[in-house]
């Protein structure tokens, strides 16, 4: 239910929670489905474990050493970049709904270019530093 207060629509909090309660219900349905599928699977499938079968498959050859091996995670710089940029771009969404409203216009457009400028300079900096190229 939307109620109009002094010309602007106000969404009543109860409706807000109701729509997400449906999301919660669907999540419950999903969990039930997975549980039922696993339960039915347990009844249908054979269980004949042998030590060879329970060994980690890897590439078909018997595994050497531990599975949780040391690996060089080359992506961590991307992770930093991502966190910075994604947090920035989240702010775009609330802004996007009002930026063209009467009374904003050119001001918000300039703001937008300042914002995009920051992102572009950041990306350019990362590029110049050679972070985006593989070594």
């Amino acid at each position, binding site marked *: 239910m939307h109620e109009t207060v002094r010309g602007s629509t106000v969404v009543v909090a109860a409706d807000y929670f109701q*729509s997400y309660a*449906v*999301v919660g*219900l*669907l*999540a419950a*349905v999903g*969990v039930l489905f*997975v549980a039922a*599928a696993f339960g*039915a*699977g347990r009844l*249908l*499938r*054979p*269980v*004949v*474990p042998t030590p060879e*079968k*329970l*060994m*980690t*498959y*890897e*590439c078909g050859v018997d*595994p050497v050493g*531990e*599975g*949780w*091996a040391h*690996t060089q995670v080359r*992506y961590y710089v*991307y*992770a930093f*970049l*991502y966190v910075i*940029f*994604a947090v920035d*771009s989240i702010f*775009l*969404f609330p802004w*996007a*709904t*009002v*930026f*063209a*409203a009467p009374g904003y*216009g*050119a001001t*918000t*457009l300039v703001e*937008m*270019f300042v914002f995009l400028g920051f992102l*572009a300079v950041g*990306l350019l900096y*990362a*590029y110049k530093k050679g972070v*985006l*190229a*593989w070594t």
Partner: protein
Amino acid sequence: MNGTVEVALRLLIVFAVFLTFPLIVGQTEHKVMAHMQGRLGPMYAGGFHGWAQLIADGVKFAQKEDVVPADADRRVFRLAPAVSLLPYLLVLLAIPLGPGEGAVGQVLDAGLFFVLAVMGVGVLGSLMAGWASANKFSLLGGLRTAAQLLAYELPMLLAAASVAMAAGTVSLPGIVESFQWWWLPWQLVGAVVFFVAGLAELQRPPFDMPVADSEIVFGAYTEYTGLRFALFLLAEYAGIVVLCGLTTVLFLGGWHGPWGADGLGWLWTLLKTAVLAFVVIWLRVTYPRLREDQLQKLSWTVLVPLALAQIALTGIVKVVIS
């Protein structure tokens, strides 16, 4: 009481869509790939055109033994398929088929935001699978999956933000309602960026580096068998349905068609989604796999700048016309 029945009906329909549409896409993929690549296998089961292939697959998955490797982190290993599958079920709830409240699972005010947030969770399942398998190749596959999400989530967010700017709302039905035909050329770059980024997040070819069989066996899913593996597959196809549905709703005008949206709006949405799903399959048979560094490069040096340019374009046009 009436409201309870209605909610139950909505949930039931969304759930039915979730169970059938991915299978339809899967069956289509069998047949389309068979035709395009001259494959004989998918054309055999059941006689006419291999119609029973999907049923045969289902029976096979259901009666296979469920092996959890002795070294694996048992609980995480068994939970991972559910984590990767269920987000797509939730997303389906918010995608509108036609105009009005009757043709969408549930109208969410922050629909676009909700959808993007929940879709990101699916990747967590692959990461959990990769880590819990206690398998070096699975771990590498899981990390590649995570890196791919990091790289492609950003252009996807930016392209979606561009549509939100154009429509002035983040509600999915609201976005389709304000759609005009000239949005197609206006948002074209954003649409391509969104679709490509979505493909990459789903790890569909040519972005299937995390499951590259020639390098890391089958990535995070190597150790999985039977039903749990089937759930991962279902997640992939549910992801295709969700991605194509979202692209349709955000960029292709959803229920709008050339002859107006009266009555047959939902058919337009389904038709556009189906065509996009066909494109996804087509791309799989057409392009070779990208290398890991090419994949990162494509996102950071091509898609992100393109998405930023699209936002600038959207902002200028929107302010000029309003």
